[in-house]
């Protein structure tokens, strides 16, 4: 892993200059981007890596003997190596490149669970999950007669550990759990939960979409079996993702999609599938996006995930400190361990009205159910307003949010 170029979190303020999209006016105001949990902006190095590939190196991968195909393959497979290093996978064959977290989870549901699950078996998730860690399990449960069961959360937005433990029985074949809740920011105590599940022989998939942008992830240290994440939540392009899986499990799993690149030999009677990870990568992949994904890994490592974590943590503390002073604010999600994501309500102003008023002042936030309807129902809400911070945000951004909220209070006074 490369050494971070920054020495302390205070240096991180210079990173803002790396993101061209942040330097623009929206509705007559300098943009304040507080929606990184939906999709993070991309640094120049990512944008340039994609553009350079498109201009100079584009060809199909793993196919041609010509020079451009060779270059494209080197860049594409180079990104896989970077991603292996990024999550400390033991082998590059464990890094399956996908279109994103959603595809990664669907791959596990269909390739690992579908052949395995019997009527009476259970898949266990929590109330915090994003729809992408709910619906794939619902589908495979319908297909197999298995049952989807859900561990509750408390009023702070933390998984009820006792009840989660009680639900872990020999009937449970897989636990699907988010690393960080996209709606509430809760960081799950994964090491402990995974250890409990593994003691009972339960396979664990972690939805890491909101984990990788904020903290160092070591899949071997976590002890899970699958870890899924996306490029665009960590300053890379959309349409890119990874499924990390233990080699022994991936080896046993049948292909998920059929097509080119995932085969060694095809006749009309029989097909010999390619080796890992290509067995799961049918068709021409998102070459440009994946090269950009690799550049995003380089960028995060150059800034240093420890620096990012410290910076975002102090900024989140500042945001909470300022928010609670706003008259009529109600924080949703107050877990003891929280990433730089904060949901809230302001008086009885509907989140969509609030989002529009903030946008008028150049402040971009997410409003609504955050693709996590069940957790909204848990709190009896149709939705919230969510401010999510990235490495490029500053305390000035928080101050702008606070003054924009005051304006909203006036409009709805």
């Amino acid at each position: 892993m490369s050494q971070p170029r920054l020495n302390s979190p205070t240096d991180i303020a210079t990173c803002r200059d790396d993101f061209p999209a942040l330097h623009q006016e929206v509705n007559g105001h300098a943009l304040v981007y507080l929606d990184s949990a939906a999709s993070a902006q991309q640094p120049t190095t990512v944008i340039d890596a994609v553009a350079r590939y498109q201009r100079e190196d584009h060809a199909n991968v793993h196919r041609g003997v010509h020079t451009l195909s060779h270059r494209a393959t080197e860049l594409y497979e180079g990104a896989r190596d970077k991603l292996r290093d990024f999550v400390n996978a033991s082998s590059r064959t464990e890094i399956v490149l996908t279109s994103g977290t959603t595809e990664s989870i669907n791959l596990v549901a269909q390739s690992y669970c579908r052949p395995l699950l019997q009527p009476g078996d259970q898949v266990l998730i929590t109330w915090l999950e994003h729809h992408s860690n709910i619906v794939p399990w619902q589908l495979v449960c319908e297909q197999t007669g298995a049952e989807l069961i859900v561990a509750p959360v408390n009023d702070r937005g933390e998984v009820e550990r006792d009840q989660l433990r009680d639900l872990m029985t020999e009937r449970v074949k897989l636990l699907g759990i988010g690393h960080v809740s996209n709606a509430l920011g809760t960081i799950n105590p994964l090491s402990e939960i995974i250890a409990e599940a593994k003691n009972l022989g339960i396979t664990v998939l972690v939805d890491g979409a909101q984990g990788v942008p904020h903290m160092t992830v070591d899949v071997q240290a976590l002890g899970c079996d699958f870890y899924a994440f996306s490029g665009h939540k960590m300053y890379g392009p959309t349409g890119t993702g990874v499924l990390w899986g233990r080699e022994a499990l991936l080896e046993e799993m049948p292909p998920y999609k059929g097509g080119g690149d995932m085969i060694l030999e095809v006749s009309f009677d029989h097909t010999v599938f390619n080796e890992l990870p290509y067995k799961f990568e049918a068709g021409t992949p998102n070459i440009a996006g994946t090269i950009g994904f690799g550049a995003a890994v380089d960028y995060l490592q150059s800034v240093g995930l420890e620096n990012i974590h410290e910076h975002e943590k102090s900024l989140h503390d500042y945001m909470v400190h300022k928010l609670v002073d706003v008259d009529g604010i109600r924080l949703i999600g107050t877990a003891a361990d929280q990433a730089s994501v904060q949901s809230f309500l302001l008086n009885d102003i509907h989140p969509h009205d609030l989002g529009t008023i903030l946008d008028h002042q150049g402040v971009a936030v997410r409003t609504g159910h955050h693709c996590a309807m069940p957790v909204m129902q848990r709190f009896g809400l149709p939705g919230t307003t969510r401010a999510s911070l990235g490495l490029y945000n500053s305390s000035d951004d928080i101050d702008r949010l606070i003054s924009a909220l005051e304006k909203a209070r006036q409009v709805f006074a």
Partner: protein
Amino acid sequence: MNASHDNSELQELYRDLILDHARKPRNFKRLDNATHTAQGINPLCGDKLRLYLCVDPNDRIIEVGFEGSGCAISMASASLLTETVEDLSVEDADACFGAVTGRLTRQSTDIAAPRNVDLTKLKALDGVREHPSRIKCATLAWHALHAALDPSQSIATTE
């Protein structure tokens, strides 16, 4: 854009009439004797409402009610709808659907149709035309009205 211009655009969207109807929606009630009903769902926002109509044998709407939850724009629009179509014939009410949604989506410029129905108040919703992501909030109740009057539909979505 300066701060006052900023304010005026926001005030254009959240006019007093809109805020008043959003806070105190008229005819916010379930009608147990409804002859026509439809649900309106905006899957993007989560806005959800149900519209109830009592239509007499002469095809006249004699009572209107709605219930549901959503943003100020969707609630105000539904409230204004109930005031507008009460006492109208089914045909005129459906013409209002066309006139209002046409105006809000800029497919027509005039809100005059149908004859003898005063739709002036609904111009208060015009602010959404500058906010593409909010137009569906304003048209949701009207799509529910159209669906309620069409026997082949029971759920209207904005998608």
